[in-house]
């Protein structure tokens, strides 16, 4: 709860968890919205859906905050986001849609041709930036090919840095199940990246 104790202009939105400890809910949002958004975006492969998922997840978190037992807030938030993404994926299976539109940007100076899976890069070189975008797109394609549970396990453990125990809490499954899903997810992702090795950057081709 240490990350939600700082002063926020939206401190009036107070919530209390199961132990009775009060918290500023907008502080919770500020602390975890980036992780929540990235998890939802990689799970859903759609930035617009990801925004909806995160919004819905925070609303659900606000309503259910009195059931939070005050243990690991990040894992708890990511668990809500995971459940929301699963529901959205299930509903999207019944009405499949593919979002390939370029991401709309707020200012017109930004390039309009970026895909939804493009990620901002800290690299300054245009070649490195293009390579990073290509790798991110390839990884997203391979992630989409994985099973939903394995994809979630890889994202939670490798991208968001959760431990197996925290991932177990977020996914609502046993520790052994998390180990198995992480292992199989990594194997599947490795096989996929090997198959699409032509598209990978030279650095990754050497490693794999």
């Amino acid at each position, binding site marked *: 709860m240490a990350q939600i104790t700082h002063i926020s202009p939206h401190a009036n939105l107070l919530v209390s968890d199961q132990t009775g400890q009060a918290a500023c809910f907008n502080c919770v949002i500020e602390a975890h919205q*980036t992780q929540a*958004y990235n998890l939802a975006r990689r799970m859903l492969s759609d930035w617009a859906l990801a925004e909806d998922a995160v919004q819905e997840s925070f609303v659900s978190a606000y309503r259910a905050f009195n059931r939070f037992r005050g243990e690991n807030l990040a894992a708890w938030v990511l668990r809500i986001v995971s459940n929301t993404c699963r529901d959205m994926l299930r509903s999207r299976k019944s009405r499949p849609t593919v979002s390939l539109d370029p991401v709309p940007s707020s200012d017109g100076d930004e390039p309009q041709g970026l895909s939804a899976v493009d990620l901002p890069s800290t690299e300054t070189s245009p070649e490195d930036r293009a390579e990073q975008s290509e790798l991110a797109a390839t990884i997203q394609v391979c992630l989409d090919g994985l099973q939903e549970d394995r994809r979630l396990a890889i994202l939670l453990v490798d991208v968001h840095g959760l431990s197996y125990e925290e991932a177990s809490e977020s996914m609502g499954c046993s520790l052994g199940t998390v*180990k198995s899903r992480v292992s199989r997810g990594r194997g599947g992702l*490795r096989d996929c990246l090997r198959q699409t090795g032509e598209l990978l950057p030279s650095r990754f081709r050497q*490693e794999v």
Partner: protein
Amino acid sequence: MWIFRSTHKHIAQDALSEYLDGRLQGKALERVELQLADCDACRQELAGLQAVVAVMQQQPMETPRRSFIMDAPPLMVRQSSPGFALRAPNWVYAGAASVAALAFAVTISMDATGGLTSDPLRHDAATVATAPTSESAQASGATGALSETGPMEAAAAEAEVTARFGTGGGLESTSAAGESTADAGVTTSATRESETESAPLTLAAAAPVAPTEDQAVQTQAGGGISDPAAEEAPLAPPAPEIALASEATSAPIVAAAPAPQGGEDSVAKSTDTESKSPVATPGDGSDKGSPGSGGVRTPPIFEPATPELYDDVVISGTSVWWRVLEVAAGILAALSLAALAIRWRTGRQH
């Protein structure tokens, strides 16, 4: 060496993944390190997994394009807690639904096959309807004793018959308008049999309206329309009531010959009951020699009788209680299934 190679096993992928995350300890860690030192394929696999993990860990976190800070608290949707009745375990609802559905199916099937007929006379009535001639013959024989009892009883019986027929359920009334009290007895007996089929509605209020000898004479004179005795017969006090009963059915009185006085009521009764009679067939023995009928038949009119005219309702056919049981079983089954569905939906939401 050959034996060693044949028995060599690659490290399981789960163990490699755990080794990569530094989660192996003790003997498991030593075993994996020994196998890695000996197995090139295992090392290559480990390198591939390491590369995947490194690439995934290097994936940057994108800042959301908009903030999800809430300006106002979202609406708190009240959790739709199931009511008291829905807090029971699922097997309660499943069992209730099964039992109710079974009861519903049983009662429906029994009803369809006629097993729920509570009135034992229903089959007799059906027999009467199919074989009116034989029943009428039996009725004629049965009324022998009745005719011996005297004209007063016969007249009373006839009055009852006409009253009942006037309300919509009737048999052969033309014989009642005949010249003998025995005929009146015939109609009485036949009426008892036809009650079960014709309608559950009998008017008993008019039964005691003609206990006098005058009524007997009047009834007897009803058959002979131009009989002066009928004309001389004084208007009995209950006669208007009987006529009222006849009018209540709105039956056409066209078949009746015009009888100006006391006989008019009797003729009206006869005509009305004749039109209502479902068993009035040309071959009916009791129909013979009935001048009142005169062979003129009006089409049968089946009108729902006015409820306020009847104070004695006889339920025939399937008992009402069985109907109630059927409906209750169906409703209970539907409610139980609905409760199961609601619990299933709420369980999914939670």
